[in-house]
């Protein structure tokens, strides 16, 4: 098929001035007095997208994804390179943009359509479709300020996708509202795709990229470093981020959860390092359902300890305990460690748990619980993700081995 979108050598430069006066000086001297630093948010990004293709754009925060999107939606201009777009672009960079809380849902929906450049008759015709898709009922004529966040998102999504665009650009907006509605959103996007819409989808979430896209592009530090099948690109991405996280475990975990990480204990033994490894013993933070993972804990004892207990606890994103056990229950041989000795404890387990984000908590203590002598307790020491695997789909937290037999029942 023919290219609907083509970028050639896209680069974007931002100027950073040490202070306002130096900018002023540069303006006054028409650029002869130059003090700004150049920061390249994108460097030489070239790719082509066929009509009807769904492309996932992945990369870490600050990799240049948003800059790329802004260029694609023509909000900002590239400093170098050019871009060709052959169709109507609709961009969902932020749901509920420009909504005014004092106006009714209907009025805001009309405004959103106007912002998309639709005219009055078109909007008139489309309103019933927006109303029915958003399922807001009587709330549609209530001021937006009485809406819950989920309701606002429903209306925003309904209004911005009421017309099928030729190119749809989505920026992590699918994770909105309740499960029912986000499923409905994904369905609408799938339908668009089947009808020929080209999709550009930006996400941190490997699961949804795999579910929606035929191709993925990986951007890091403004450079396009991988372009290929979502599987291959995501694997590369995983490897990349685990290498990065090794040295800055705690900060990473803190920012991911936005919560204070608890670490407590009397220090008679402490975790020097905790790592999660995939089947090939490479550090990993994303696993498929059913993948075997190893949790390797490097412990240093500061005192003479008789068979300290090392434990792990996996929690879901809401903090519910999913699975936890320790060396006491697993009945390892008793051993006495001298002060200064290193202990390595490796738990190997198949991750038969549902898709989602999890955190790992580790502890070392005496006895069967940490309540007696707690040496080191490290909450949320790392975070990992479970994404759909190759087996059957399911919902819920536990992947139970299931067998199904269906047969015709004969009446006696």
């Amino acid at each position, binding site marked *: 098929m023919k290219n609907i979108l083509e970028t050639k050598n896209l680069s974007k430069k931002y100027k950073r001035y040490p202070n306002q006066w130096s900018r002023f000086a540069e*303006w006054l001297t028409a650029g002869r007095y130059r003090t700004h630093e150049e920061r390249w948010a994108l460097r030489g990004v070239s790719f082509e997208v066929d009509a009807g293709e769904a492309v996932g754009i992945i990369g870490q925060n600050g990799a240049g994804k948003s800059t790329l999107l802004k260029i694609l939606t023509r*909000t*900002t201009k590239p400093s170098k390179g050019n871009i060709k777009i052959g169709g109507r672009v609709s961009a969902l960079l932020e749901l509920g943009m420009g909504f*005014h809380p004092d*106006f009714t849902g209907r009025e805001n929906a009309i*405004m959103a359509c*106007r*912002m998309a*450049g639709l005219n009055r008759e078109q909007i008139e015709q489309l309103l019933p479709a927006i109303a029915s898709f958003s399922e807001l009922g009587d709330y549609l004529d209530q001021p937006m300020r009485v809406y819950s966040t989920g309701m606002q998102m429903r209306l925003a999504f309904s209004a911005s996708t009421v017309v099928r665009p030729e190119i749809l650009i989505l920026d992590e907006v699918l994770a909105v509202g309740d499960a029912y509605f986000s499923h409905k959103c994904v369905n609408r996007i799938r339908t668009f795709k089947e009808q020929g819409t080209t999709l550009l989808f930006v996400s941190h979430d490997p699961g949804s990229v795999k579910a929606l896209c035929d191709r993925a592009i990986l951007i890091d530090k403004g450079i396009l470093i991988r372009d290929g099948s979502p599987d291959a690109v995501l694997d590369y991405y995983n490897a990349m981020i685990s290498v990065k996280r090794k040295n800055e475990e705690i900060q990473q975990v803190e920012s991911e959860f936005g919560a204070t990480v608890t670490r407590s204990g009397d220090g008679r033994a402490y975790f020097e390092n905790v790592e999660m490894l995939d089947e090939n013993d490479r550090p990993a933070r994303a696993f498929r359902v059913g993948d075997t993972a190893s949790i390797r804990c490097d412990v240093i004892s500061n005192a003479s300890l008789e068979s300290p207990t090392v434990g792990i606890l996996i929690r879901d994103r809401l903090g519910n305990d999913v699975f936890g056990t320790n060396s006491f229950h697993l009945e390892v041989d008793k051993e006495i460690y001298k002060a200064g000795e290193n202990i390595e404890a490796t738990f190997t387990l198949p991750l038969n748990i549902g898709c989602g984000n999890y955190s790992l908590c580790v502890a070392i203590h005496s006895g069967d619980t940490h309540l007696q002598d707690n040496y080191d307790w490290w909450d949320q020491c790392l975070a990992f993700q479970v994404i759909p695997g190759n087996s059957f789909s399911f919902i819920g937290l536990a992947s139970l081995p299931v067998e199904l037999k269906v047969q015709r029942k004969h009446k006696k």
Partner: protein
Amino acid sequence: MKNEFWKWFGSRLFALWRYRGFVFGMVWREFHARYLGSLLGSAWSVLHPIAMIFIYTVIFSKIMRARLPGVDDNMGFGIFLCAGLLPWSFFSELLGRCPNIFIEQANLLKKGNFPRITFPVVLFLSSTVNFVIIFTVFLLFLLVTGRYPDWSFLAFVPLLLLQQFLAMGLGIMLGALNVFFRDVGQFVGIVLQFWFWFTPIIYPVTILPQFARELLKFNPLTQLVLSYQQIVLFGNWPQWSLFKAHILFVITTLLISFVVFRRLSAEIVDEL
């Protein structure tokens, strides 16, 4: 270069036309948002100018007995004040708000893809709506007090357009510059105060010494305000020939403003 500019200019006009629904929607929204949640609603938009005109005419002229030399109407001073003040507030509302247009709409500009030129136009139109309401109240007041407006009132239309295009020209340029140097917005506030006193709005130009009158000629608003006062007080048509320089000045300002806006337009989003 020249050709390219006009091409750009044309494409902006076309974009404005295509987004007219958005522009009118924003104007409507701004008007309504102001009175939402109030019992009297848009009646307030009429009550404000009524109060203002009441103060100038009844209180200033009748109770404080301020008199205008050469006018024997007992409300003359109040009417003289309104003739200058109403258009001035129209001008200063637009010019005063222009520096912040792009900053206020930062989020829309960064996340949405629609023409940036719509924002100044929304401001232009919504200040016009306010003025039309206020001026209508003023006209009604004149009718009620038996001072029938003369045909020369029609001259307000071209004169006000000239005045507002001047505000617009300066405003777009200052709005674009203010994104980079927030000092511009602060500066405009001060300039507007001086500009008010350098325009013969609340004093007749005749009380000034000769050198000050000469100086006031360089203020493009002087001739406009004098004409407004002539129309309202005496029903005199303005002397059109006096406005040749104004027209030239306004067109030049608008052109410079568009050139500046075009140059900075791409960088505005990066800076917000």
